[in-house]
């Protein structure tokens, strides 16, 4: 597949203060990418730079093989052939649904415009509302209009800025999946910005986790969860806690709670201190186990309990247990470790160690 979007070593700065630095990634034609990160991490600035609303402090952006942004030269947004869906939808209140959708198609001839509008009204199931104005629509309908308007002129790339943030939590994942189907049907290359990982999982082929102005990892959802590149990614994606351990012989790690796991990070010598990521599903409740931890806290989740357990040396771990195992706070329960993919990071005092598991996109 040819490359549609190429972001090379991009930095964006406001008044000399860098918001994102050294960003690299590519999107193939028809691929849906996602920039995922906590609020204030710089993901929206990056999206706005791709759209042409922000100039670059370093690097280049290529769209469909053409350079559109470099330091000191920014093709204005109206010349980029992009489509953008805004957080507040930004529908034009003085125009009807079909006028909103055809707003970006003024360079096409009348017949083409009309047939494209019909096509989109069908695709978004908006036919019944074509003559209504935005304020008469529900939030979900408004969003479909915003999407149709952005897709109208068949843009090179579709940019979606937190498009679900004003939706109910239950609706979001469902909508994200619906929109993915629509985009795939139309063969649109798209990039989504969100802080909600479940939205990202539901919609994107490839996800870039952005933290503190840097792209921490670019990969699919499965790899992000099971092979996080660093502690920021592991803390941001899914649930889990970091426990400490020490590298022993044969590339194994002795956890301070007593268990032995492997593998240790590459290049870590025996004696190195490491942090090990334990997900709630890595800890299995087993009444026969010798290893017993005291229950500190519990949260009922319907199908299961999420127990917070305290190890003898004071570390806290999470454990997901089927909900008929109803234990009280203060009780001790038996657990055993069942780690499919071990993720561990050398601690900072072990300087010669290299980060392990770095699934960087450059590779």
């Amino acid at each position, binding site marked *: 597949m040819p490359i549609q979007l190429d972001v090379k070593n991009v930095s964006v700065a406001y008044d000399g203060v860098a918001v994102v630095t050294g960003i690299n990634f590519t999107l193939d034609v028809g691929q849906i990418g996602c920039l995922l990160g906590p609020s204030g991490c710089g993901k929206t600035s990056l999206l706005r730079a791709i759209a042409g609303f922000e100039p670059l402090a370093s690097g280049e952006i290529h769209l469909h093989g053409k350079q559109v942004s470099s330091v000191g030269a920014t093709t204005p947004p109206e010349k980029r052939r992009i489509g953008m869906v805004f957080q507040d939808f930004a529908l034009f209140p*003085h125009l009807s649904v079909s006028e909103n959708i055809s707003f970006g198609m003024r360079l096409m001839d009348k017949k083409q415009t009309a047939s494209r509008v019909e096509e989109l009204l069908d695709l978004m199931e908006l036919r019944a509302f074509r003559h209504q104005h935005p304020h008469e629509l529900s939030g979900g309908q408004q969003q479909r209009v915003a999407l149709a308007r952005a897709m109208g002129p068949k843009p090179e790339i579709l940019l979606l800025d937190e498009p679900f943030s004003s939706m109910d939590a239950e609706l979001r994942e469902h909508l994200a999946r619906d929109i993915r189907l629509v985009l795939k049907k139309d063969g649109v290359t798209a990039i989504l910005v969100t802080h909600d990982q479940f939205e990202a999982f539901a919609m994107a082929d490839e996800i870039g986790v952005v933290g503190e102005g840097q792209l921490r990892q670019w990969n699919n959802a499965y790899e992000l969860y099971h092979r996080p590149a660093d502690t920021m990614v592991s803390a941001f994606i899914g649930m889990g806690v970091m426990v400490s351990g020490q590298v022993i012989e044969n590339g194994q790690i002795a956890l301070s709670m007593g268990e032995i796991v492997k593998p240790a990070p590459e290049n870590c010598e025996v004696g190195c201190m490491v942090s090990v990521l334990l997900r709630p599903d890595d800890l299995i409740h087993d009444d026969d186990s010798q290893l017993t931890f005291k229950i500190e806290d519990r949260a009922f989740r319907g199908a299961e309990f999420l127990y917070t357990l305290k190890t003898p040396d004071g570390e806290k771990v999470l454990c997901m247990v089927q909900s008929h195992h109803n234990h009280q706070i203060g009780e001790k329960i038996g657990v055993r470790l069942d780690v499919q993919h071990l993720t561990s990071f050398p601690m900072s005092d072990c300087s010669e160690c290299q980060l392990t598991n770095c699934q960087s996109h450059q590779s």
Partner: protein
Amino acid sequence: MEDFTKKSEESSSSNWWNWATASLAGLLSLPILVVLGYLFTPAGEIWSHLVETVLADYVSNSLLLMFGVAIGSLLLGVGTAWLASMCSFPGRGIFEWMLLLPLAIPAYIIAYTYTGMLDFSGPVQSTIRDITGWGYGEYWFPEIRSLWGAALMLSLVLYPYVYLLTRAAFLNQSLCVLDVSRTLGNGPWRTFFTVALPLARPSIVAGLSLALMETLADYGTVQYFGVSTFTTGIFRTWYGLDNAAAAAQLSAMLLLFVFTLILLERNSRKKSRYHNTSQRHQSISRIPLKGWQSVGAITYCGAAVLFGFLLPASQLGIWATTVSEESIDGAFIDLISNSLLLGGVSALLALLLALFLSYGQRLHNKPIVKFSVRLSGMGYAVPGTVIAVGVIIPFAWLDNSFDSWMRAQFDVSTGLILSGTLFVLIFAYLVRFLAVSLQTVEAGLGRIKPSMDEAARSLGYKPNEVLRFVHLPMLKGSLLTAFLLVFVDVLKELPATLILRPFNFNTLAVRAYELAADERLADAAPASLAIVATGILPVILLSYSITKSRKTK
């Protein structure tokens, strides 16, 4: 590569906006700067003569007048605002917008109307004599043509400023704090004095400062009543003593008073913004008034509307009908067309400039652009007399220099090219009223979220196309409002028009004032009534926005 916009191009466009807005701001603030410049020129002989004789009068009269108007407009404005917004009594909904009606009457018109009604030969005193059988000099009757009379007249038409802002403040604070106070055991009246009033104070002060600025700017009322204030002093120095420098120095002193008020108003507005702790105000549970309380409320609000609008307007109507045949003639049609022309042209120009400035600010939000926009809107507080002095001095200098140069070079006298024409008059109106349309357009643009611009840009529209296809259609309402407000203000404006109008050029306001000054009160009525009728337009707009905001709640 061909559709690359180089950074230098972008910054040159930005430079263009900087220069354009800055020079416009410079031009519009020129009159004020000229006047302020006279603060630093050495005082002449006439100035020291003024200081010795009349300056103390000007200062004390202006201060007393402000004091009187402050008391009057607070009494009328705050109480009615509380009753009309927070209490429920029969007729409340009607009073809510009728209380704004006095805004439609310029102070000089209400002043001569009351004079006519309360004079020795007027209907009030005649009735008293008929009933009692007293003759001339056998009873005491308050003299309306006095400083306190002027304060009363100004209060009657200026209290709506206090009413408007206070009412908005009461409505904003309604839900959260007032209910909290009630749950803490304070009764409704205690809540008014301990919570609502202190919280509304910044808005009350802001409204009051506006009323006082208008008081300082007033020329017609004080001149008619023979009260010497700064504005009448400036006139007298200008025409009587024919001394531009001394008039400008008086103007500069007046400006210092005005700036104090502006600071007060700005400060209060800033505070009132912080004082709104809640964004949402749902339907208010109004305090129901019992029988005699309702009567009191109706009397209170009714008195404000009656004396501020109904009574003077009816008197004007009666006068107008008695003279309608002889006074509504070709000359009267000329007056109307002159006024419409001036108002229309000025309002249109103000609208274009306001659009230009506020759109420039939206595209290039640089400090210099922002500062220029603020500077251009500075004239709103400056009295018309001061602006007239500040306009005529530089333009007369320009005309005279050009004339003498032409005479020296070509032996041709060009006369007064600019300063004797409508050009300076319209320029003065722009200086004075641009702020009105600027505020309206800015507020309208501000309600359009930046994402609208970006959405249109991402769909292939250039910035000027965004203005045409997105902003203008969405701004229709604001643009119409801005046009109307300036139009009506120009129609009502008196002192600057008096000074700057071309020879033999009359407007409704000037003619009404001249006839009234000649004690031909009835003859002045048709022109005055025309002004009041147009003045009702913005009142309708205001009450419409009030009802609309109530509906959306």
